[in-house]
């Protein structure tokens, strides 16, 4: 059954009412590596989402202008005393940050491996890209150098 719209509502008789848009994620590569043509590389689809998730995790809260709650604060955890937080705290923070600020990713699992004797931590995030259902695993190894 064809639906009719008034002229005031846009006279859509010549325009299809529904369309299927394939969402393509296209982002700039934050390494700013140079292509042969001199242009910067792009990240697309799952790679773009993966870069975004890593960016969120590595941003400390209050670091981004005018968005004080943005970020997973992994750097902050790295420089805090190991007694003041647990692996669960990190897991919750990471999962919450991705949920709040990366709608393209659905977190499946977060794994945190703390190694306070070596001032290091390893965070593994497994998530699904919403549009493609592709499962991506991101590993972040952090070590204090000073």
């Amino acid at each position, binding site marked *: 059954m064809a639906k009719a719209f008034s002229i005031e509502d846009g006279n859509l008789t010549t325009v299809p009412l529904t369309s299927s848009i394939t969402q*393509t*994620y*296209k*982002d*700039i*590569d*934050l390494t700013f590596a140079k292509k042969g043509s001199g242009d910067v590389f*792009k*990240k697309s689809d799952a790679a*773009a989402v993966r*870069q*975004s*998730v890593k*960016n*969120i995790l590595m*941003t400390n809260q209050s670091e*981004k*202008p*005018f*968005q004080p709650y*943005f970020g997973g604060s992994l750097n902050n955890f790295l420089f805090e005393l190991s007694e003041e937080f647990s692996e669960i705290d990190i897991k919750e923070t990471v999962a919450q940050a991705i949920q709040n*600020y*990366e*709608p*393209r990713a659905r977190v499946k699992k977060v794994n945190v491996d703390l190694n306070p004797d070596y001032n290091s931590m390893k965070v593994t995030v497994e998530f699904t890209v919403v549009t493609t259902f592709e499962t991506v695993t991101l590993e972040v190894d952090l070590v204090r150098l000073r």
Partner: protein
Amino acid sequence: MAVIRSSDLDFDAIKENLKTYFQAQSEFADYNFEGSGLSNILDVLAYNTHINGLIANMGINESFLSSAQLRSSVVSHAETLGYEITSQSAATATVTLTVSTSDTTTTQISLPKYTTFTTTVDDITYTFMTLEAYIATNDGTGTFQFKTSEGLTAIPISQGTLKTKTFIVGDTADEQIYVIPDTTTDTKTLAVSVFDTTTSSSFTTYTDVQNVVRITPQSTVFIIREAPNGFYDLIFSSNNVLGQSPQAGNKIVVQYLSSVGALANSASVFTPDNQISFNSQTYDITVATVTNSSGGSEKESIESIKANAPLAFATQQRLVTAEDYKALILQRYSNVLSDVTAWSGSDNVPPIYGRTYVSLKFKDGISSTVQQATKDSIQTILSENLAVMSIDTVFTDPITSFLEISVSFDFDPDQTGSTAQTTQDLVKTTAVNFVTNNLNKFDSVFRKSLLLTEIDGLSTAILNSSMDVKLQQRLIPTLNTVKDYTINFPVTIASPDDVNYRVESGRFTFSGSTSIFRNKLGTNKLEVVNIITGDVLVDNAGSYNASTGVVSLSGFNLTAFEGESVKVSIVPANENTIKPLRSYILSVDETLTSARATIDYQNTATTL
């Protein structure tokens, strides 16, 4: 293509503009996701724009006196308007200083500058000091009373810590600015001395340019101004343009008081820190407080500067309006004057154009020599330099009008432990104090209801009150001489009445009889009456003009009068409000002020 609006200052709005721009192209799509690299780049761009916009906005705001927020900007704007910003001010009290000795040979002693006194306000001890040296002369019995150069016994002492800064003048081509790194400096207390060399004992005293009216090549002036960081910059003439400049190798010694401002106000008891020595003997200084410390204040606030600087600029430090005369004269001669009023010749009675009339009220104890010197000084320093050329300044002595206040009140003894007599005395004292404290200066208006309100509030036993007010001028007649007299009142006089007299005088001797003069009931003619017998001695001794407030006596010849003058009292047309004109000052005649109580037990059950 989307338009990027450059007028947005808000970070989110700027970023949203950039996103809108990206919507129109397909190269990158992730600008909407906060974690994306593109979003990070947009953050940097938006933040940069935001900060630039903010700085531009603040810069423009600081460029105008009315919108500036930083004190340094406001101070700078005020300076370009020639406005002198008030620094932190030291509280000042006045005291009498006496030294009692048995030494009758020493004729004169001096009290050095910066003699210190200690006092306490709210359990905190403060030091006050003299800012000048004072001289005391032996009264013949060994008692020395210090006096100011004007002859006043009230010596001013100011709160603060004496600080000294010494500068050596370098190459004058450098146009040095001498910094006083003290935000609590009271710039009014600055004493600047310039010595020829670092070891020289002779020096030249420099004066604040704000206190100088005319500058010649020989003038020795300095400029003190607040620096952006709250300190003070001391500046001298450059290349002898603004008077003399200190020369290379000179030593500049600056002494000033660093004060605590308003905290030291209301100190009342002062103790000298040291005794005074002369003729190998040491004596105590006896201090009696004349006025408690007051006038201590913090630095002028930003809001105050914003309000006053444009107004000060408008006056241009010139004597143009009557208010200019009042403000400038009082500002420069407040050490001897308690009040000033001025009015244009066109407002005078009779009008005389081309003149400004000035009336000065001197403080008690100022000698006639100092009074004349002050008038001469106003004429030569202020009028001749700052007034409009064709306008002459004419001094008029203030005329005191005395109020005679008669209060009647209902008094319920059950409401208080005080007697009617005590309450009468209290009411009379209140009336006298009301006039003394609120009037007694130029342009002060007596309002009957204000005094009645004060009286009603004295005690619950005072049930209601009413008041008759008369105004009195004092006539000093020439004895044994037939003469006409005119007595001017600053108010209109009540119209003649068949019951009450409108004009009445005090007692005098006329043709051998103790007499008074008064108006004939129902007329404005004056008659002289024997106060003992009631006989009318002169039927037509003059008249009074109710509308102009003038009482005229014709062919009047007295042989004696009671007291120092003949008191002439009138009933004002409006007793509720008495506005003295021009040079008139309202005071009170205590002897003719009275209060009378009527006993009222508030018993409403009694019959009429």
